[in-house]
């Protein structure tokens, strides 16, 4: 197993977070992140569809010709989305009352088609599933954070953040904060790498220790 590839795929949901870095799937993110429960439910449903789509696309990558790959992926995504919709209507009627109307929108979430086309069809099933899980969990965390923030601000009297405009504004702020923290982590890691290279030079390059 390629450890580097595994680590990159595993951390994909954080490094390239669908909500705060890639900025994909904003329609359901804004529409149904007015409270934490709805946001989490929608995030979980999206993650499920993403994982299943990635696995199936990876399994069928050699069978589906290039010409019809996007149409096939869309059919597969729509199928899994409908499956989730049927499940929620049957077993979670209370949740269906609140998020049921936006579940079909998962089928047009560009995150899912994007990952299927850019990753799943070029990698093995295991990596495709891992990518689906990582991106799905990243999306779930992103939408849940936004939902929690909007709900808390709404309860504190700032009802503007429960509207769509306020949601977009808050998303922008969280996006900025997320990327700032990410850049801090990268900077710290770079400094650490440089420091380690100075202390323990690469023996094959003939460096001297200080």
């Amino acid at each position, binding site marked *: 197993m390629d450890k580097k590839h595994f680590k990159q795929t595993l951390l994909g949901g954080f490094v390239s977070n669908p909500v705060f870095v890639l900025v994909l799937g904003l329609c359901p993110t804004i529409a149904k992140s007015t409270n934490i429960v709805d946001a989490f439910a929608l995030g979980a449903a999206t993650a499920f569809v993403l994982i299943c789509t990635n696995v199936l696309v990876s399994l069928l990558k050699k069978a589906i010709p290039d010409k019809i790959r996007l149409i096939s992926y869309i*059919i597969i995504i729509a199928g899994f989305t409908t*499956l989730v919709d049927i499940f929620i209507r049957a077993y979670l009627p209370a949740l269906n009352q609140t998020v*049921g109307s936006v579940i079909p929108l998962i089928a047009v979430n560009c995150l899912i088609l994007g990952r299927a086309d850019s990753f799943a069809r070029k990698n093995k099933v295991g990596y495709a599933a891992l990518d689906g899980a990582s991106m799905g969990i990243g999306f779930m965390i992103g939408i849940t954070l936004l939902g929690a923030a909007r709900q808390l601000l709404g309860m504190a009297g700032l009802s503007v953040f429960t509207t769509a405009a306020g949601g977009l504004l808050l998303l922008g702020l969280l996006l900025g904060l997320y990327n700032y923290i990410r850049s801090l982590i990268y900077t710290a890691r770079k400094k650490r790498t440089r420091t380690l290279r100075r202390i323990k030079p690469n023996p094959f390059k003939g460096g001297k220790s200080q």
Partner: protein
Amino acid sequence: MKSETKSAFKSAMILASVAACVVLVLAFANAFMKPPLPPPPKLELEEVAILNQIAPTGVDDQTALDEYYFVLIGPQTAEEMSAWNELHGNTSFKVTGIARYKILLAAFKADKGPHAGTVFVRTLTDGYYDIRADIITAINPDGTFKHMRLLNNAIYTEDNYASGDIDKINAVLAGRPIGQITANDIKGQLPIVIGAGATETANVFRLAIEIAAALFSEVANG
């Protein structure tokens, strides 16, 4: 066969196979994962209070409940209600989130008091996303329109739409045979600025009247 034609045919077959597999799985899932039945209709103090306002019995709400001034009529169990709504109602969603709803929730009749014989039909009709119009329509014993009350709806609440809309509907439709009321009778009474437009708004009340008329004709015919 030329290679291009062969390739196109192969692509079409693969696409059809993928679609067929997806349809099969969904058909299987649909057959085994049925949505639960809605709760059966009920008559509690909350309903009696509303009915007592529309058709006053002359007694307080608790007395009206205890002494059966109002009774449940029409479908009584969840199964009967579900079957009735399959026949006369409708539930579907459009992509834009407009919920096409036409559901009977409960039907009551005034059994005692000065308005005995009045039929009340409680319905859920069109709305947006998870918001639906909860309406009670009252029908006189002779089958004429008596009154309509909007109970709760985030878009069409009595606070946020132009005041007097429901009063206009009540004034225009009063005394008209319930089975002869059309969409045009209601449409002209509502301002276009509400919701998605007069047509959508008129639907909310038109569908409630259609269900009320269907229920009344069943009850009247025994």
